[in-house]
């Protein structure tokens, strides 16, 4: 492995014994990357940045936080009021969850649009989905920690869902609660797991990257890299491009942290948990809302739970469901339109999930849930009937042509 030679003697000495510098050079400097990646390819590295921010802010929060039903709420307020820059730490962590999910959602839909889940990247896709699942678990348990009204009631509603599972459901719920209702043992185990899972995510991200560097990046054309003319070294081209993305993300994220830190928060969670008073609307954090809408659209409890989990699990089967050999939606006229309909459907489901399940919201929820699930069989059919546009011969050709025609910047490849 350590075939690279370094000028610096110390670096060379270390590298001969532990080839971290060779690895860095191989995977972060020379790493050949398709030359045509657009800005939608920034969101993986942005999610990584958010993960690091969550870990750091979380570890410091945990130094001041007290996982006890009588103290948790006040301990969070003490962080806000009495810890130096505690308000900043907490708002970074609270809004960080939101921006982490924004990055990951864009990242996932990017993969969907450009067919990045197709061979040979199936394992890469699955690892990503596992990361997403563990993230949802982490965020759900994190939301329990400040022990506000929605922390308590959100935890109660969601953990109760597990009772719908036949035979083992009640035992699972009792195990989650550590008793017979959401209480101090629940808070303690959630805190423990909330501390643990981000490190599991970190390890999964590492595997995700190993898989990525084995199959290499997909690209907006969705065609394979044919040779060196199709790629550029990761550094400096993509290091600087990723950095630009970080700058823009920080402007947005910190803009909310400093000027509207509770934009994504529910006022009710600033009321301390009270098991005797049920809040009028129990809503989960925004990133769960589409699934919450699906859950409530099925009249049967077990059916709702299955539909909710099914809505995520089905993504694991995409490599088989999608019958088209063409990756990028750019060359798939029908798929492209269905993709946008699916995306809009998810946003509408999110809105429905945020509303009380009354009146018009109930039938709307059902209709849009059906549309959600219809997407997947449709994907199979489209692959069979659609006539894709002709694919370019190589990545290098169109890019170089565009360059000669005097385009300074390749436009953001969107639709």
């Amino acid at each position: 492995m350590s075939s690279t030679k370094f000028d610096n003697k110390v670096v060379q000495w270390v590298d001969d014994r532990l080839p971290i510098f060779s690895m860095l050079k191989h995977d972060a400097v020379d790493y050949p990357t398709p030359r045509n990646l657009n800005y939608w390819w920034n969101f993986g590295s942005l999610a990584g940045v958010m993960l690091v921010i969550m870990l750091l802010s979380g570890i410091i929060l945990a130094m001041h936080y007290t996982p006890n039903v009588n103290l948790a709420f006040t301990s969070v307020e003490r962080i806000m009021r009495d810890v130096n820059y505690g308000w900043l730490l907490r708002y970074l962590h609270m809004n960080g969850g939101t921006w982490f999910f924004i990055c990951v959602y864009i990242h996932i839909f990017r993969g969907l649009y450009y067919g990045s889940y197709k061979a040979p990247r199936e394992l890469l896709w699955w690892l990503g989905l596992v990361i997403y699942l563990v993230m949802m678990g982490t965020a759900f348990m994190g939301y329990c920690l400040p022990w506000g009204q929605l922390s308590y009631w959100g935890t109660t509603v969601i953990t109760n869902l597990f009772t719908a599972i036949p035979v083992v459901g009640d035992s699972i719920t009792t195990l989650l609660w550590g008793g017979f209702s959401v209480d101090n043992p629940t808070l303690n185990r959630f805190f423990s797991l909330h501390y643990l899972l981000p490190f599991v995510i970190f390890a999964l991200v590492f595997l995700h990257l190993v898989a990525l560097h084995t199959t290499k990046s997909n690209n907006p054309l969705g065609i394979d890299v044919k040779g060196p003319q199709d790629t550029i070294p990761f550094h400096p081209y993509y290091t600087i491009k990723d950095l630009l993305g970080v700058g823009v993300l920080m402007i947005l994220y910190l803009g909310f942290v400093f000027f509207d830190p509770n934009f994504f928060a529910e006022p009710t969670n600033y009321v301390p948990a009270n098991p005797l008073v049920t809040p009028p609307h129990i809503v989960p954090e925004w990133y769960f809302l589409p699934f919450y809408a699906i859950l409530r659209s099925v009249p049967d409890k077990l059916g709702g739970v299955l539909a909710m989990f099914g809505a995520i699990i089905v993504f694991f089967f995409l490599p088989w469901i999608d019958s088209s050999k063409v990756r990028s939606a750019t060359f798939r006229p029908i798929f492209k339109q269905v993709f946008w309909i699916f995306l809009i459907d998810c946003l509408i489901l999110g809105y429905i999930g945020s509303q009380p399940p009354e009146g018009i919201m109930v039938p709307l929820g059902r209709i849009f849930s059906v549309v959600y699930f219809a997407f997947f069989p449709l994907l199979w059919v489209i692959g069979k009937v659609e006539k894709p546009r002709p694919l370019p011969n190589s990545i290098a050709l169109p890019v170089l042509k565009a360059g000669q025609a005097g385009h300074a910047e390749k436009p953001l490849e969107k639709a």
Partner: protein
Amino acid sequence: MRKSLLLALMAGLVAAAVPAMANEGAEPAPQNWAFHGVFGQYDKAQLKRGFQVFREVCSNCHSMKLVAYRNLADLGFSDDEIKDIAAEKQTQDGPNDQGDMFQRPARPSDHIVPPFPNDQAARAGNNGALPPDLSLMTKARPGGADYVFALLTGFADAPAGVTVPDGMYYNPAFPGHQIAMPPPVADESVTYADGTKATKDQISRDVSAFLNWAAEPELDARHALGIKVMLFLFVLTAMIYAVKKKIWADVH
């Protein structure tokens, strides 16, 4: 940014859903607050007046447990003034060397002493209704300070056909429109030390601003630091953009 978004949404919802809102509180009208907006900062004189209202009126029923007397330094009170304000209240301490609990005047390090020793006593003193702690009130209700202002100025005679039970008061700003709090402020309920005319509107405005400070005492520091961070990020990102363009020039 939140306001304009919300406003647009509200306008639509209000137009579509007026009949459906009978049970919700009316949307509070947005007020002009000194602390709103990117450059917003608290008006110290207003917070001081608001504290006076809280101290003379609201604190007879409501606690504010998350705020300590020492925090009043933010409003511009001197150390001695804070000592005097704290010392007005007795708080329990102990045990002493004999093992007895004892009463002593509160100190700046104590949190604001609640009017009732526990929730049961608070209910017993208020016809069975619990006056909620006001430390986080503006963060814990949609509309924040606008809501508190609308609530304090919203008391009215019940419209024909609506009967309000004994001990309840009609207030369209409150969800359900009937609240167990008697109208706490009227013109001249306080006499301002700084000579400001104490209309009901003025008093309500001042105490709402004060409650916002109690809930978000970090706001001034947050806005000030935020502006610096944003300026830094704008310059940094512009520079990264320039470097990126230069590096990529030979690829296109």
